[in-house]
């Protein structure tokens, strides 16, 4: 067994990016994700990489665009209001089909909100916060170990599909220290014949998101993107079903709120109540088929979020008999409580 170390979520993510071969990081400070740039600023120069604190979030995401266009593995990170500022760049990146990893360590909103952990950016992450017909992959870690493991996966998925992969964590996951076994490189290699690497001996490549002529060229791109999104939806749904096979009461959650749900499930099971947890690992694509299976025997489906109800829309779209779906959430940086989840589940039985 590999050695366990105690590591903070934000730093585990940074180290995993370096293990994944990320050699460029651009960002602008904001709590509660600051340990990501702080870590990258220490580590990247030692592995021959480039860390640059940009003058703004907008500048940082466009530096990501540039490094990615040149074929590099590149990452940026921020927290909710800063991610809002990056949306223009993310839309351009989608249009130019550039691979990159973007990290959102969510905090309470709207606006500057506060600096505590939140899950208020689900809509922004899964519905496209920028303009145009596009999607981005969204991974939702729930532990420090997953902050690292999903970062390696994020870089591979980004390169495989030439797409932005968003790692959607929250302030608690960023700040928590837990046991971590450092992941090993996946060893996957991706050719990037489209990259701007100098055109000597070949036709020049072009990376752009503007397509004016001919007038059908943008729709052609949209259709290509659509095929890609369909392929991702078919192949890349990820989730965890915990004690769901016989579950009469199903909790659905992701990230930090899923940890609290898992405890509630364990305690309910000890009392003989058949509860289970369905946990998202990808928020887009949404693992609808797996949720249908997990919810097959459920009398009630309780969606638990650190928001006032966003993922619940995808849950309702996915399950049969959506009138079974109920909601419990806390917002503004507050956490759902195990006892309240248990109280609600027990109330369904009466």
């Amino acid at each position, binding site marked *: 067994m590999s050695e366990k170390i*105690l590591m903070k979520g934000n730093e585990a993510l940074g180290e995993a990016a370096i293990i994944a071969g990320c050699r460029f990081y651009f960002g602008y400070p904001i709590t509660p994700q600051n340990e990501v740039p702080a870590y990258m600023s220490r580590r990247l120069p030692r592995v021959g990489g480039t860390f640059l604190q940009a003058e703004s979030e907008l500048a940082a995401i466009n530096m990501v665009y540039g490094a990615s266009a040149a074929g590099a593995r590149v990452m940026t990170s921020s927290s909710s209001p800063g991610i809002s500022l990056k949306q223009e760049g993310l839309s351009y990146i989608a249009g130019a089909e550039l691979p990159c990893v973007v990290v959102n360590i969510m905090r309470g909103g709207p606006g500057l909100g506060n*600096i505590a952990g939140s899950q208020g950016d689900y809509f922004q992450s899964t519905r496209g916060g920028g303009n145009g017909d596009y999607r981005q992959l969204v991974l939702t870690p729930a532990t420090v170990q997953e902050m690292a493991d999903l970062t390696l996966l994020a870089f591979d998925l980004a390169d495989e599909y030439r797409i932005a992969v968003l790692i959607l964590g929250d302030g*608690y996951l960023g*700040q*928590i*220290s837990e*046991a971590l076994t450092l992941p090993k490189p996946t060893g996957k290699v991706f050719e990037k014949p489209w990259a701007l690497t100098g055109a000597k001996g070949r036709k020049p490549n072009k990376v752009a998101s503007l397509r004016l002529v001919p007038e059908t060229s943008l729709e052609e791109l949209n259709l290509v993107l659509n095929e890609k999104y369909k392929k991702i939806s078919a192949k890349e749904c990820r989730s965890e079903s915990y004690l769901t096979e016989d579950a009469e009461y199903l909790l659905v959650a992701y990230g930090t709120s899923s*940890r*609290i749900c898992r*405890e509630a499930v364990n305690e309910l099971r000890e009392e003989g109540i058949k509860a289970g947890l369905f946990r998202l690992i990808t928020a887009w694509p949404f693992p609808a088929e797996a949720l249908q299976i997990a919810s097959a025997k459920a009398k009630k489906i309780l969606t638990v979020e650190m928001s006032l109800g966003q993922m619940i829309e995808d849950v309702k779209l996915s399950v049969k008999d959506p009138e079974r779906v109920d909601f419990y959430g806390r917002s503004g940086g507050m956490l759902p409580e195990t006892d309240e989840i248990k109280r609600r589940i027990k109330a369904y039985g009466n």
Partner: protein
Amino acid sequence: MHEEIIVAGFGGQGVIMAGKLLCVAAMNEDKYVSHIPSYGAEMRGGTANCSVVISDKEISSPTVPKPSIAIVMNTPSLVKFEPRVKSGGLLIYNSSLIDQKPKRTDITTVGIKANDISEAEGSVRAANMAVIGKLQALKPEIASLDSVIKALDVVISARNRKHNDTNIKVLKKANL
């Protein structure tokens, strides 16, 4: 075993480090651990604290609204956290700096002259070791003293490891 612990004090008293020391020691005994610093607006005004959970089971929430154990290094931290300790819980307070006595009678309260013990070993900066040494003596199921001492080499930065002899002396002195 499941303990939810708050370590609180002034910035600079090493409370974040003390919490990490407990985590690494318990982690190396294959327990589940989590550590989260207070990083919000509550840090303004000079108190720093961290929430530590050490358990035989997977940890759900890393926050500790009602600690089973509170370790307080200064008076503002006593005032803030004494009322939050779970009934039947444990409060360890630094009686070198805290003049007042805890008021609760439904919890165990233990005063330790952390600064004095540390200074007697040549440095006031190891006061955090004194409270951890005391905690280990009272709650040995969290981690053995040996694991705590071994964890020093992980938690203390290379630059400060030369002080570990002092740290170990203070840990042992308070471990009664």
